[in-house]
């Protein structure tokens, strides 16, 4: 070891060098560790603050990094689910045509009757991914046919209590009018999918949307509408009792995030409560979909619907307006498959996100781990920044940082696969881990050089 140190020994460049080395040796160890502590903390805080600022300002690089992390996590999601997949019934055979610009209500009715009377047993829930919005999406609401169809749906609820019809922007009209009349309000479920600014695809969908509405007295009310996935899964009514992990770390993780979106030219806001969707089984959902006939009949033999979630919508003939990019996948998927993946997620396959407190805590824990390694190196007295052997120590720190990066990526995988926690900060934490030894080394050298230049004459 001694010979190795000799090998790295730099030649003295000036007369001030021995003095600097002497100072390096003399500087108290505790001070060096404290400086490193401050450096590490500052670095972490700066990176987190920069990340949040960049995300708030929609910087391209930040969006790209976030998207990359999410795509990677989606790719790595385990496909070992605890529950079976929802069944998607493809209604492409009676999809809207230029001559009849809306989905045939008579075919839909026949299809529902067949699904409910399925020999294997009635499904647990049915979601119609058809836009029944009254206004302004005319003619998706068909005044001559829809009231009769909705009355049929209400009566069909005796067999399948969880039967819902899709609505889009007509939620702005409130429950009294979103499906044309207040008696149909209970059927309404929101089917919009968030657009995807920046890169990639939206990994979140709305669980609820809360829209303002002026009451007849002139007061502003806020009405809450469930998404189709939340409605068919009755989320969170049948949520499991939290396990020991959730009881201990519940404050760190959440099932959904809420945010308020301002309405332009108004003082009001729309509140969205969104959740991360597990898209890992979307291809399986598509391949197991069932195509209904042109008159709404089911193929023979009828698929097994018993106690399953059934979503009805267009798969094969979905047009541009109903095709969406999905994280972790290159192709675009029809909206009904997105709702099915969302329902699968809420049906006890929830992906969890870190709360603000949880994110901070995790950032701090990883920073402490990095700092601990660096401190362990510093604790063992070793060469100062300009002394022989210092470079060798720095190399080791860098190698250890790389090991930590692998550990962090491993944690990212464990989080998403075993604990189903969607931790998309892992790239940033890995970056901080890599930067730390380099910055620490650079600052230490710069500090020593400055000290050498400006040290008092008597030292």
């Amino acid at each position, binding site marked *: 070891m001694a010979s190795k140190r000799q090998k790295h020994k730099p030649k003295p460049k000036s007369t001030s060098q021995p003095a600097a080395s002497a100072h390096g040796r003399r500087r108290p160890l505790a001070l060096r560790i404290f400086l490193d502590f401050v450096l590490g903390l500052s670095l972490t805080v700066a990176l987190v603050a920069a990340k949040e600022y960049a995300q708030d300002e929609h910087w391209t690089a930040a969006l790209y990094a976030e998207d990359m992390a999410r795509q990677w996590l989606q790719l790595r999601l385990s496909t070992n689910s605890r529950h079976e997949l929802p069944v998607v019934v493809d209604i492409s055979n009676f*999809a809207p045509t230029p001559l009849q610009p809306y*989905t045939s209500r008579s075919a839909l009715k026949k299809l529902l009757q067949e699904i409910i009377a399925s020999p294997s047993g009635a499904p647990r829930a049915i979601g119609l991914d*058809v836009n029944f919005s009254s206004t*302004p999406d005319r003619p998706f609401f068909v005044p001559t046919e829809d009231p009769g169809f909705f009355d049929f749906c209400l009566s069909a609820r005796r067999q399948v209590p969880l039967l819902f019809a899709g609505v*889009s922007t007509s939620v702005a009209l409130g429950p009294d009018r979103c499906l044309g009349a207040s008696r149909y309000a209970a059927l309404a479920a929101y089917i919009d999918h968030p657009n995807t600014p920046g890169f990639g695809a939206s990994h979140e969908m709305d669980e609820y949307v809360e829209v303002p*509405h002026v009451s*007849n007295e*002139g007061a502003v009310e806020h009405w809450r509408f*469930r998404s189709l996935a939340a409605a068919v899964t009755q989320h969170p009514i049948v949520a499991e009792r939290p396990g020991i992990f959730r009881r201990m770390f519940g404050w760190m993780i959440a099932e959904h995030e809420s945010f308020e979106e301002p309405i332009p030219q108004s003082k009001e806001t729309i509140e969205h409560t969104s959740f991360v969707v597990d898209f890992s089984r979307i291809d399986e959902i598509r391949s197991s979909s069932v195509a209904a006939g042109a008159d709404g009949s089911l193929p023979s033999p009828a698929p097994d619907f018993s106690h399953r979630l059934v979503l009805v919508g267009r798969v094969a003939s979905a047009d541009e307006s109903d095709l969406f990019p999905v994280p972790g996948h290159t192709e675009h998927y029809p909206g009904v498959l997105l709702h099915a993946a969302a329902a699968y997620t809420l049906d006890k396959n929830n992906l969890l996100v870190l709360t603000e407190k949880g994110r901070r805590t995790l950032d701090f824990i990883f920073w402490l781990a990095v700092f601990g390694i660096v401190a362990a190196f510093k604790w063992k007295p070793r060469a100062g920044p300009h002394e022989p052997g210092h470079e060798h120590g720095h190399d080791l720190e860098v190698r250890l940082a790389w090991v930590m990066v692998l550990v962090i990526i491993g944690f990212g995988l464990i989080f998403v696969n075993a604990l189903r926690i969607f931790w998309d900060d892992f790239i940033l934490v890995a970056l901080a881990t890599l930067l730390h030894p380099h910055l620490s080394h650079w600052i230490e050298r710069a500090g020593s050089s400055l000290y050498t230049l400006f040290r008092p004459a008597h030292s």
Partner: protein
Amino acid sequence: MFLSRLLIAIVLGGTALSSVSAERRITAVLENIDEDCQAALSEPGKRAAIDLDRFRDGYRYLSAGETVRCKGRGFLTVYVPSNPKDKRELKVGREGYTAPTDSENVSRAVRAQQEQLERQTSAALQARSSPAGTRAAVGRVLDPTPDSVVWPKHFVIRWRRFAAPVRLSLSIHRDDSPQLAWQADDVDGQAGQLDSAEARAALLNCRRSTCRNLSLHWQSVNSSYDIPFVLLSETDEETLERELQNWAQLTDPVLAHIGRAYSLQLRKLYAEAAQEYQQALKQAPQSCQLLHDARNVTDNTSDLDLLTEIDGAIEKAHCPAQ
């Protein structure tokens, strides 16, 4: 005495009937029902309570005056949107909760306020997200309208602009021959229209060879369909041009537009007629007659945006239903 009692009975009977037939206003939502709650609902004016199912009645909308309560030890959650934000979710036990009542008389000012907020909210929702559900496939092509008549001289293909770059392939097929009458590939979907002199020439050639029925084949990345249309005959064209010249002689420009729209509509030139009504509405935007006529014509076109715009204008002008 008997007469006065009879009158009171008639008035009360009438009131009761009207309250049954009228749509009751929703003022609260029954969100969740606890396992031990054994929830029950009482409708206003009825003593018998209905037992509620914990799962089936989750998120049941409550009309004004309806009361929910737990018969057991548990709780249910009621969401009352008109309450202040921190008091919107209420935990209700055995004491019960009655959905707030309100008056049905909506003042004009409140109605205007409602409509404005509805429009703003709807626009904000549209800006953030897109409906992920089955929608009309025809909405993209605005002109020609299915089963309409096309005027070869003024033929322009119009469609709803694509937000993203999309290349289209458009072709016109004759019903009496397998040969293509006209074709254009690699058309820019973001342009929103194709004004092609070649297409017009092809249609005029077609008409000269006595063909009348054609279809436009639309092919984009994920959709393809045919829009059948008929060519305006030479005789009809001559008559139409004469009529249009006559209408132009009217001194009132609004009447001139109405007249032209009438002549165009008569020949199933719906898109052109709808444009005439739009010109007329620029000068008399609140005319209920014009708005309803414009709506009737536009209903025959595929221009859903324009239809929605007219509906909004009809509501805004408080026009009586026709």
